[in-house]
């Protein structure tokens, strides 16, 4: 029976991050792109919390790492709120949420 160690958390975080990045790269739907971005932020959150938990010692409690996560969650929420609002407004004008169709600005 192995205890779950720091590395396990980090591997999960890395996988999540990679999934998010890959999704951003290949998915065409803006809403999914936004979700993938959230995934990446949360991957970083997992890493932060895991580091804070496993590196902590009585002298260095590293509570900052945990506190930071709450800021990130707030920021992510704000980001996604703005993002969805723009997507909705855009959908009203263009009737699409696909990145392929949003190419009015180019050259």
């Amino acid at each position: 029976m192995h205890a779950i160690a720091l590395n396990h958390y980090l591997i999960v975080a890395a996988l999540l991050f990679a999934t998010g990045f890959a999704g951003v790269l290949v998915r065409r739907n803006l809403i999914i792109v936004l979700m993938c971005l959230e995934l990446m932020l949360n991957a970083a959150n997992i890493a932060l919390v895991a580091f804070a938990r496993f590196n902590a010692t009585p002298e260095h409690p590293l509570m900052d790492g945990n506190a930071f996560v709450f800021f990130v969650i707030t920021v992510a929420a704000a980001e996604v709120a703005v993002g969805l609002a723009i997507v909705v407004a855009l959908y009203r004008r263009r009737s699409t949420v696909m990145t392929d169709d949003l190419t009015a600005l180019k050259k």
Partner: protein
Amino acid sequence: MTRTLLTILLSPLCAAALIALFGRRRGRLSAAISVASAGLQAALTLFLLVGGGWDGSTFRDTATWLTLGELQIDLGFYFNQMSALLLGVVTIVGFLIHVFAVGYSDDDKARGRFFGGLSIFMFSMTGIVLSENLFMLFIFWELVGFSSYMLIGHYLTDVASAAAKKAFIVNRVGDFGFLLGIIWCFWQFGTVSLAELPQALSASPVAACTLTFIGLLLFCGVMGKSAQMPLHVWLPDAMAGPTPVSALIHAATMVAAGVYLLGRVAFIFNPQALSVILAVGLATAFLSALFAFGQTDIKKILAYSTLSQLGFMVVAFALAGGSEGAATSQFHLTTHAFFKALLFLGAGSVIHACHHEQDIYKMGGLWKKMPVTFVTFLLATLAIAGVPYLSGFFSKDAILLLAKHANPAAFWLLVVTSFLTATYMGRIIFVAFLGKARSHAVEAAHESRPDMLFALVILAIGAVLAGYTGLYPHALASYLEANIAEPTHAEHASMLLISAILSLGGLLAAFFIYYRPGKNTDTFEKAAPGVYGVLREKLWFDNLYDWYVRAVQQRVANLVAILELVVIQGVLVRGSGGVAGLIGLAARRAHTGSLNTYFYWFAAGVLAFWLTTSGIL
């Protein structure tokens, strides 16, 4: 002292600012402001030179402008006998030309702009004269270039704006070399201060080759500003500007700035550099004198004459180098400023009287209608031809004497050039002033306003007397006498003879060739159309540059355009076949405007950064 110099430097700048603020629509006001500032400059300069404001010693005062780590750039004045001489020339000739310009520009609608430009020019030119270091000098160097650009294009015609553009671009070519020279100089010696460079030079021995390069790079600036071959093409075109501008900037002062720069950094040129400079100067002096025969526009003839005389000055410097070469060239610069400004103003007086007719074959018989202009123009012609005991005689003799001692080949080339000078100047006199009027405009000509004549007369006095160093303020006289080679008694007689023969012979030749009252064709052109054609086309220098721009520069531009097309359009957008992999995939769609493709840039960036920091890449 500092305060006086500062006032001399800044008064035209204040004038320009005032004109910009209040004078744009008030021509008379701006003329008054501009002339007043030039007058103040001249008065203060006279105070320094003859009024006891300066004791003749070298004066230096600097203030730190900015410090960058170990680099410190100063602003300041470095005022010695040589700068005093040029300051005198610039302010006094400048003032007279301002006075003349008031009358000349009375029918100009954009008078405010014109005088504003003149004042900016006076500011920048004074700055060049007084600059303590090469960096500061370069700033003013660019500023005179800018004001010259503004004033050449003053009339806003196509020809004028093309000429202004040409002058600007050709000067940029020269200035690029100049700037490289300054940077290299700083690199090598750790200073660009004109006062400290000589010590730095002797303290740190550098390879001859390096020194030659630095010298030649600095000379690039001279080639641009003083219009030496092959960068001379802009000066004849610059005659599209108003005539007082041609007189002030493109004859008397700005084009002389290059020669002045040579004198300022005389210590940096080694024999190798000097031999190149000599060749350039000789080519300019001789070929320009030839080209003058191919022109019929009075201002263009004078422009080629200016080129030729600038060639003389450069040759004078290159023959001896050091302080001797500097003084000899400055001496010719001074006399030339007087008689050439006079020639241009005389031409301006004629052009003004003939309703902007500039072709000498449309003039004729002007001596009766404009006696004062004629007499002063004649004096200037005799002076430039080198007729004994006029100003040009002394300075040109000094150059011939130097050449005779140093370089016989150069001597003979200069002798021929002097003869040609007398001939083409005689051509103007015989065709334009003597004989009979060849057009109605010229028949109706009348003498110019008294204030314009005032400037002509004063300059004429200068053109006659500027060769007598005994009349100069003591500090300047001692400078010139100490540094210019004095001929021995026997030499004196022979030089006198040579000069008399050259000048009078040249004028006589002009009389026999060109004095055909009433005829309006060029005798020489008729006799030898082939040679004349070559001269008129100025050895195709302009055509060569045009060809270069069309054939080479345009092609390179086209090539770049094609590359842009291929690389950006072809490879990045459409070239799917050749470029494989992630970056190719990202790059192919780089400019589609689609978000996903943009994310690939991020992926590539993250990858590249990570690999680099991890030491794999």
